[in-house]
């Protein structure tokens, strides 16, 4: 007999039907939540869309190549998540465990549907089955390891890492999903009594099955159905919760990697005509950011890398890139998902970013690009800051020496306000070259 197991084995048809119903409801709840975020982003400014029809396929590919490459290297390859010690391992384990378990469950469903078309199309048996069971059995442990590491991290909670109460629920559900998955498998092994490879390919489930040795087949089947439901409900709860918790980054992280401008701190020029047409320069109302910038706010996990790299934060200035992104995200939460009011007018004082973000915060930035450079999902706080600075300056919000410098630049083309004729004075310089200085010892 080739090793296999029956999909939905021991699950009565009524439970199966209910299972699909709950699946549909949870996906619906998740989709609605995600759509509500999308509708908030869409109130941002449009980015000139690639002229799909007019463009040759080659051009289109060239345009999307950087984003697709980032998805591959930085998303799937986790390039930017790495290098932060144990927390990188935690994310890596959870990530690979989650992906493989998700892929496994999807394959199982594909096999199930294929079998409905024709019995011959079933592929969930034999060598494939052995490999499948073994891989998922091991990756379940990896998933649990990642969860455990994150529990540890949340308990110690470094200052730069953001925290919400829902984070405990999320981690708790991960832990329970992982454990109940193994229990379901162990109970299945208890009543099914597979032998040989069919048993050994699930080492964790097999070992756990010894705990249930005392159960009769009937008891094992009852418990199997109960724990299977618990497992399924938790998974569906997780799917539904994605857009309402920190888990949202599962979707927004890759999306931002795909859509973010390739260069850190890249600024699109604004023409005078555009500024006149819009009646403003830079960002005053939250909706003056591009939709991609608004989306990037939802990609922030509050991991704190930007804050640790920021020279302003390090010198106790009133700026933390993470805080800034989170404050803007707070404003985004307040946007009606339906888009109340005319988004282009931006007159609603409620979404005036400058009422929320102090000018001092914006002026503390040295534009060093460290924040965007370290962000695993390429949120670009510098570009947010520069867009806000543009508006501050246009509204006459810059004072002090920096304002004087701008006036000098205007008048004489250099920040010192010296005459252009003096530009070659360095050739007549009389101060001794630096090399005359004595070396230190």
């Amino acid at each position, binding site marked *: 007999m080739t090793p296999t197991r029956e999909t939905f084995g021991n699950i009565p048809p009524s439970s199966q039907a209910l299972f699909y119903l709950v699946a549909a409801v949870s996906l619906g709840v998740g989709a609605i939540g995600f759509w509500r975020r999308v509708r908030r982003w869409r109130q941002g400014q449009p980015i000139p869309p690639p002229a799909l029809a007019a463009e040759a396929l080659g051009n289109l590919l060239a345009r999307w190549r950087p984003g697709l490459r980032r998805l591959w290297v930085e998303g799937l390859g986790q390039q930017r998540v790495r290098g932060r010690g144990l927390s990188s391992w935690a994310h890596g384990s959870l990530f690979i465990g989650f992906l493989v378990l998700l892929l496994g469950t999807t394959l199982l469903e594909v096999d199930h549907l294929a079998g409905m078309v024709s019995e011959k199309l079933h592929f969930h048996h034999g060598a494939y089955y052995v490999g499948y069971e073994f891989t998922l059995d091991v990756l379940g442990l990896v998933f649990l390891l990642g969860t455990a590491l994150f529990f540890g991290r949340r308990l110690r909670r470094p200052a730069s890492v953001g925290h919400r109460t829902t984070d405990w629920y999320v981690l708790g559900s991960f832990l329970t999903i992982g454990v109940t998955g193994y229990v379901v498998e162990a109970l299945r092994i208890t009543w099914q009594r597979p032998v040989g490879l069919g048993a050994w390919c699930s080492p964790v489930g097999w070992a756990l099955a010894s705990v249930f040795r005392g159960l009769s087949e009937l008891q094992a089947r009852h418990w199997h159905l109960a724990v299977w439901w618990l497992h399924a409900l938790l998974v569906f709860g997780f799917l539904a919760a994605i857009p309402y918790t920190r888990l949202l980054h599962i979707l927004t992280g890759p999306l931002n990697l795909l859509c973010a401008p390739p260069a850190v701190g890249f600024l699109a020029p604004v023409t005078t005509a555009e500024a006149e047409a819009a009646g403003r320069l830079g960002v005053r109302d939250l909706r003056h950011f591009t939709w991609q910038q608004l989306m990037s706010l939802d990609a922030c996990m509050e991991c704190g890398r930007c804050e640790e790299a920021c020279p302003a934060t390090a010198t106790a200035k009133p700026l933390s890139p993470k805080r800034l992104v989170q404050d803007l995200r707070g404003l985004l939460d307040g946007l009606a998902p339906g888009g109340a009011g005319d988004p282009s007018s931006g007159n609603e004082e409620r979404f005036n970013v400058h009422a929320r973000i102090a000018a001092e915060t914006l002026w503390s930035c040295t534009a060093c690009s460290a924040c965007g450079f370290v962000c695993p999902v390429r949120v670009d706080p510098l570009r947010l800051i520069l867009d806000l600075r543009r508006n501050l300056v246009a509204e006459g919000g810059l004072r002090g020496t920096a304002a004087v410098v701008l006036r000098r630049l205007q008048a004489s083309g250099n920040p010192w306000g010296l005459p252009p004729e003096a*530009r070659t004075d360095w050739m007549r310089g009389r101060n001794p070259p630096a090399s005359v200085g004595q070396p230190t010892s």
Partner: protein
Amino acid sequence: MSPPDSLAAAPTVQENPHFEFLYWVGCAGAYDPRAQRVTRALVTLLNYAGVNFAILGNEERCTGDTARRLGEELLFQELAAANIATLAKYQVRKIVAHCPHCVNAFRSDYPPLGGRYEVLHHTELLVQCLREGRLRLPNALPVSLRGPLTYHDPCYLARVQGVHAAPREVLERALEGGADGAVREMPRCREKTSCCGAGGGRLWMEEAPQQRVCTQRAKEALATGAHTVAVACPFCLTMMTDGVAAQGVATRVLDIAEILVERLRL
């Protein structure tokens, strides 16, 4: 008027219309007394290596980096348009600059406005000259360069433009023969460098002594035990000099071009 030292003199684009490289001096290099010494050092090296170059002289304007990063977009575009017109007038194709902010403006800010050039940071051009043997280094290392040295990567050069190998190669060649040899790296180096505190217009803003970014960075540099802190940006030069001075030590802060001049005993 003839300059005191012919090696430290540069022809203008009118004087040398068939130049290969336009040397973009930059505002700091033109007006700031300390950065002027870097300009003289670099011009000395370019002349010594036989690079065919010219300067715009009094037709140069600020690239607009400071204006743009302070948020004055229209002023930036005004300055950029003026510079792009001047560069077009003299058919400039290759630019070398010793200011990473100028390099970044030319490489990243100007192309969308129609200004496209081949732009080199001076350390990149110096590496070429060293590799091609156009800058021949004497065997003996001067006493002044015999101590350990660290290099502070400018954000806009290392992180934004990804140039961090060239400055190190210049330094390694300049320090060849010394007991300490290679550059002593700070914990935060290359793309992960930490800001000197001058970017984004902060050079022009008041800063409380306990909030100075340069003090922190200077401490990091001094912790390597370096006798010389090498920099490659006029803003970093100002900030690191201040930061080191605040620590009350006599460690020298020099641009890479100055270190090379010292090695060549020019």
